[in-house]
């Protein structure tokens, strides 16, 4: 194919070619973000609501449930960590998964149900925390031979 050596011709240097497209994308993202930001800014300036918006920006929902939210995030992180950690003692048997899942499910159900309701549901939580991970472990690790930590 004949090469246009005009204004739009381009030669991609092989050694740095891995950065070629990412750089383009980064520029596109910056470009779009600036335009969106500018549009919003202009709109707010026209409406006169700029100060309002800045003050009123709420990251979290109103009355967000701190315990449940951060608890969930932390529990999930701990669950993943435990699964891997316990699993190292019994490689590839899936026991790390099983044990961590039982603990996680119990803790998470407890967290989500709310302190007041726990008594009412404690039996169902206990049962499901034991049965579901066990059933999952049997099904995935034993029947389908999927490696679990």
């Amino acid at each position, binding site marked *: 194919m004949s090469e*246009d050596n005009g204004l739009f011709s381009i030669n991609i240097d092989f050694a740095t070619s891995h950065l070629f497209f990412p750089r383009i994308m980064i520029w596109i993202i910056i470009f779009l973000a600036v335009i969106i930001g500018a549009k919003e800014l202009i709109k707010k300036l026209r409406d006169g609501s700029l100060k309002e918006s800045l003050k009123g920006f709420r990251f979290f929902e109103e009355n967000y*449930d701190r315990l449940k939210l951060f608890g969930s995030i932390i529990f999930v992180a701990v669950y*993943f960590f435990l699964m891997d950690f316990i699993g190292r003692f019994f490689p590839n048997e899936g026991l790390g998964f099983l044990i961590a899942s039982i603990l996680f499910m119990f803790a*998470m*159900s407890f*967290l*989500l*149900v709310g302190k007041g309701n726990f008594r009412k549901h404690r039996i169902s939580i206990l049962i499901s925390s034991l049965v579901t991970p066990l059933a999952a472990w049997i099904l995935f690790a034993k029947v389908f031979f999927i490696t679990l930590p």
Partner: protein
Amino acid sequence: MDFANIITPATLMLSTLGVIGGIIFGAIPGMTATMALAVFLPLTYALNLYQALALLIGLYVGGISGGLIPAILLNIPGTPSSITTTFDGYPMTRKGKGVQALKIGIVSSLFGGLISALILAIFAPVLADWAIRFSYIEKFLIIVFALTVIASISQGSMLGGLLSGSIGILLSLVGTYGSTYGGNDHTRLMPEILKPILRNGFSLLPVLIGMFALTAIFSEAEKGVKEEPHQKLDLAKGEKFKMSVFRGQIINVFRSGLIGTFVGLLPGVGGSAASVLSYTQARNFSKHPDKLGTGEPEGVIASETSNNGLTGGALIPLVSLGIPGDSTTAVLIGAFTLQGVQLGPLFINQNPGTWNSMLGSLIFSNFIMFFLMFFAIKYFAKVIFVPKFILYPIIVIMCTVGAYAINYGVMFDVWTLLIFGLFAWVGGKFKLQIPSLLIGFILGGQLEIYFVKSLESFGTFTIFFTKSKIAWVLWVLIILSVVWSIILDRRQKSREK
């Protein structure tokens, strides 16, 4: 064509199991068809491709259909595609016509599914034949088109959609620029310390599951996980279902089915868009538009026919172009990758057995869905009462299995769940559009390859405009979709005023 391989007791049974599982997942609010496929995907290792597809397609059909159960009975959509079903389905329940509404929804789902299967069977090979002629440039432009479409139909501004899509693309580029695609095997977009972990980038499935499942759970946790009040469901009473409801609705059925199929055809656009579009059209063409929303079967028919119409439609671009029609079909790509089959214009020609198997599974699943739901609706309806505090931990566990197993046991994939779950949750606060981001993520790698290869082959940017007539057509389509979205945007803004 080896029918003996396709129609085996195993595939039929897996189809049925898939539909049952799908209906259950779809019926539980908060769990979607996409999640169902994502969770069951690792199980398909042990199966051959026909069986894997039977299971997954069954899950897909069941999942989309199952959403109507809580939508009608509890006013809560089981899946995003059932949002508009609540508009008329729930009022019908309040009037004591709950069972009737359910059955109308089920029959509509069957019609929608069959219409889209027919269009799939006819249209996909045609599209594939045509797409074979695409060179890198056209392939690049088609993906750009797909991204603009998603950005325009997504909620919120088109610019926001494009930004989200671009972020998705950038995220997909993290990793190594592989030499199998002509790259130089260097890593990029990562700090030195993280190189060993991020060398292979982020895997699609954990990203997908994390952004849908974990994000939803974190949002719910933030809001305090309020349980829906249980209502006494008396399914024995209520008016009997009569097929005569459909008399006079034939046009509605076909129109909705076609809308669903067409929306499914558009890459990346999925469930809720189809049903919303169909419902609005039903209202525009209705003889008594003000009754819609008060419990008219017409509304349920429009909504449910279109969301099942989506299933066949979304498979069309998947199979003929290798571009997923919606996020659920995006998971299907994983199944093909697992089995080493490449989707794209050559797929149908080179894999007639698999193609026929897919069609067969789709049709079969629709019928199974119909029989199961129609006659066993009472049992499925009970599923909606599983409490969230038990359900959410189960979802996390299932997602973990899926994420871990996808690459035969990489713990980082599990952490990816959390990373992207948090990322999407935070992003949502800033109006990041997850569906656009996801499609950008899925298509980003291909986008790069086609772009770079086009430039390497032809040496100039102008080739994107001068290569062929097909390229021009694609440019026109891209411009049209951008203009269309600007129009939609303006309309929406004037409505808001």
